[in-house]
């Protein structure tokens, strides 16, 4: 019997790493790990481990094309993602230092944080974020978003709320329309690398719930980032999104605790 999620999950209702469908992996995080930078963080989601450091807001580099024109109205966010050669199972030797995956993560993070942060407070400046992936075990983008948020909070850069990312997938290929009578597929929260390679998944990031109306607890989650690279039948999207957004909510509470715990010290 092949040991993969799509065959074992319907039998056991447990995933390969023993989680149920709605369980996050263990999240451990620290803030201010690197005193040399303006803000820094360490975040581990299961076996995905990320170090993030933020420099700035600092004056944009001279001769930088973005520093003069685009930086006029607000700070420019620069993101640099480095996936260590030893991060995944097979060691990679790369000449350039950046590959397609890290480039995509960097550009997604850049556009997410560029529009998220209060950059208008820092005209003509640059906020540079450096993300180092020490160990890659799925949900890289989501973990990077969370690590960046912690580092930016540590750097004291104003933002409307915490940006928290999470992934969600389906426990099968989900390529045919969903049958409400015979629905055997479960959504999976926080996918790991084997699940990511096998199953369709999406990454979603939300900002702090924004209360609407007069009711104090009437929360409205705001999706700030949503990416999906795999194919899935559109009838499953809503379920996956709902699970992902709920995961973001759980992660926000964890990050809240990390920030509060580190400020107390």
């Amino acid at each position, binding site marked *: 019997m092949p040991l993969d999620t799509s065959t074992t999950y319907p039998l056991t209702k447990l995933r390969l790493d023993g989680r149920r469908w709605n369980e996050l992996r263990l999240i451990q995080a620290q803030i201010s790990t690197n005193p040399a930078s303006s803000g820094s963080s360490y975040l581990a989601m299961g076996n995905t481990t990320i170090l993030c450091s933020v420099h700035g807001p600092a004056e944009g580099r001279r001769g930088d094309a973005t520093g003069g024109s685009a930086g006029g109205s607000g700070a420019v966010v620069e993101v640099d993602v480095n996936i260590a050669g030893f991060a995944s199972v097979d060691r990679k030797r790369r000449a350039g230092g950046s590959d397609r995956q890290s480039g995509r993560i960097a550009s997604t993070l850049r556009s997410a944080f560029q529009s998220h942060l209060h950059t208008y407070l820092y005209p003509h400046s640059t906020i540079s974020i450096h993300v180092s992936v020490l160990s890659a075990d799925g949900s890289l983008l989501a973990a990077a978003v969370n690590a960046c948020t912690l580092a930016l*909070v540590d750097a*004291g850069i*104003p933002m409307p709320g*915490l940006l928290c990312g999470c992934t969600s997938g389906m426990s099968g290929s989900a390529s045919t329309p969903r049958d409400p009578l015979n629905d055997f597929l479960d959504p999976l929260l926080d996918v790991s690398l084997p699940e990511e390679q096998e199953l369709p998944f999406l990454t979603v990031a939300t*900002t*702090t719930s924004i*209360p609407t109306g007069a009711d104090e607890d009437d929360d409205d989650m705001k999706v700030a980032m949503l990416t999906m690279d795999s194919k899935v039948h559109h009838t499953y999207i809503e379920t996956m999104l709902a699970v992902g957004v709920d995961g973001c909510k759980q992660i926000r509470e964890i990050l809240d605790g990390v920030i*509060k715990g580190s*400020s107390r010290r």
Partner: protein
Amino acid sequence: MASSLPSLAIPGQRLGPVATYAAGPGTHVHHSHVYASIAGPVFVDPAQAKTQTKSTITVSRTPRPAANPTTTAAPSSKPKYNTLPAVDAVVLARVTRVQKRQATVSILVVLDESAASKALNPTQPASDNDNIESILSSAANPENHSSADELRFQALIRKEDVRAVEKDRVVMDEMFRVGDIVRGTVISLGDQSFYYITTARNDLGVVMARSEAGNMMFPVSWKEMRDPVTGVAEQRKVARPF
């Protein structure tokens, strides 16, 4: 709103309605509520009767020395020197290079504004701490120039910032010499490498200088200093002595 404020805010945390609070530093307004923008302790400054009607809510990055959030007492134990140069701060700087359009100086001592006003008061001179004295006594001596100068904050005095009158007639060589100690105020934080300093005030300019012969000179007018041994006068932009 009756609910009490959190002692520690997280970005995105709602602090109160705009109707009762004004948004201070570290907060922003969204959907007519004040939210925290940064993580840190929350302070409420009560309304001053004349200037504002609402209490200002502030999120700071570091805890204030006064732990009581309702008092607005200014922190009294501010260091008097060795702070970062800020705009309007009075600084003492040593001239390291004189060029045609500007003089390069390295900042030795920064007096912040409250300390500077005291320092300008003759009853309490600026040298009430030994640190400044020790720096300055070694400073005006040309032999003492060390590489430590380069580690200090660098600043520029541009030609047009030397004095307030006849700006276009300024000749930098007749205003400063390398090794002079200059009192100036910061006009701009400048760029990555230099602060900008002005001496365009009567009480700003060269305060200590040595003559070509190497003797400490005393000021005789606003643009002249004299060597007590040889009697030779040299031109400087002299600060008014107290």
